[in-house]
């Protein structure tokens, strides 16, 4: 049988739901080296046997040569601001009391760079090419996380 559309008390237009999963992300072979290094106050990179590039953060392989990196090497915790931005809102779009400066920092002798926060510097003072150095969390407070470096500060 077929019927004309009857009067219905309401149209059902949307169905609400969510997709929730718990994840465990292993650090990987290279990641374990990197984060273990941070806990010791060292920045670890990986060296490509073919082109000699030192990748920071380290990678198990050289993305250029696709060769397995053969050596874990410590790089200085000093480098150069490659580019930077000033954040006026936080991760959920909430306004920040004080603007924060985030920079991509190329560490001395390394390929690639770390995204991190700049401290002890006003937004208008930051510039591309600025020399910066890591300020570490005290040894007992380090957890093997990127936040073991509190921020990078300018060096003269």
């Amino acid at each position, binding site marked *: 049988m077929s019927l004309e559309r009857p009067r219905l008390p309401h149209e059902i237009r949307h*169905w609400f739901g969510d*997709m929730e999963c718990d*994840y465990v992300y292993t650090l990987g072979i290279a990641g374990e080296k990197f984060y273990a290094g941070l806990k010791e106050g060292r920045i670890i990179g990986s060296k490509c046997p073919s082109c000699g590039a030192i990748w920071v953060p380290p990678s*198990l392989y050289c993305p250029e040569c696709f060769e*397995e990196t053969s050596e874990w090497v410590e790089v200085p915790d000093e480098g150069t601001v490659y580019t930077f931005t000033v954040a006026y809102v936080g991760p959920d779009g909430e306004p920040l009391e004080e603007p924060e400066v985030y920079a991509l920092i190329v560490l001395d002798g390394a390929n690639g760079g770390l995204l991190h926060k700049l401290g002890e510097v006003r937004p208008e003072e930051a510039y591309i090419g600025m020399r910066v150095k890591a300020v570490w969390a005290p040894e007992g407070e380090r957890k093997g996380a990127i936040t073991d470096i509190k921020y990078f500060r300018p060096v003269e």
Partner: protein
Amino acid sequence: MASVKRRVAVIGAGITLFRRRMRETGRELSFYAAKMALETAGITIRDVDAVVCGSAPDAFDGVHMKGEYLLDGMGGHNKPYVRVYVGGGTGVFTPIAAWWHVASGHFDIVLAIAEEKMSSCHPHPQKAFTTIFDPIYTRPLGPNLVWIFALEMQRYMSVHGVKKEQIALISVKNKRNALDHPCAQLPAKITVQDVLNSEVMVWPVQKLDISPPSDGAAAVVLAAEHVAKRLTDDPVWIEGVGWCLDSTYWTNRDLYYPKYVEYAARMAYKMAGIKNPPKEIDVAEPYDPFDYKEAHHAEGLMLARKGEYLKGIKDEDDIFARYGRDGDLPICPSGGLLGVGNPIAAAGLMKVCEIFWQLRGEAGKRQVKNDPRTGVAQAWGDLMQVGTVIVMRA
């Protein structure tokens, strides 16, 4: 397939261990498999013109845009690179996509690589699996993925009068075959009784009827004829490819037979000139995430008539005589997903690697005894709807 421009060969293959949980990131696993495939093909990444990535839902690795995330570990850095996706059928579809990259004349050497890291989804990837169901019609019923397999298995058994004791023999065979696979996650010497006594998950599916969730990666290198002949004396030709998808309305079709697998197989067989599959195919790797699925898919591949894959098979001797490595038609000599493991896309590609090694006579302890010339690998996926098929010849 009137105008395939060039013949395409597989010239190298690589694979990682398959395990429930791996410390390596998905990228690192991909690198291992890709590197091995390149080395066995005798080439480097510089020789590769394009890369095809295969990986199942983003929800497993827990990284959205997983193709892009995996790119550098797959050797796709600054190259034409694409991720293909047809659910559980992805593992066989990945070399199919790589095949058309080469057959079209556009690229000479293409790396096809598949990865899955299901352990990221914690404690069990089942949670991610439930998001494949229709959010409005089905999810409110609280389904888990095993439901659809149980319903399909029941329907298959009911329509054909196949017994659980017979189906369990497939698990016995594949887990035993996997004892000879160096990467296998769940190789075992078990009996039908072990399967029938294992925990009931979703009746009639029991624990030993199911393949495990896994981490792993696999890769193959494809080359155009003129390049393949220069690089190797033993190219394995891709002679037929086929794929077909039905709708996600899986309750609206009879689950006893995977028609879409048959359509995919017909496409591949036509291209390869195969008219009598059980006679012309020497070794097969149908997709076996569950034991009954091997029967279901072998029938879809027309290696047996509908409902007859297990006809007359009553015990271990029967199944090994028919489908063992020295049997009439060796099926899943690798050990399949049941024995080697099931990192979804990587598992499908593992089957293509196996056919490659079998046709080259390089499968070692797993080598089938009938001097195979023609092999077929098949994968399947999603809501009882995807079939992907590849036919290879030595």
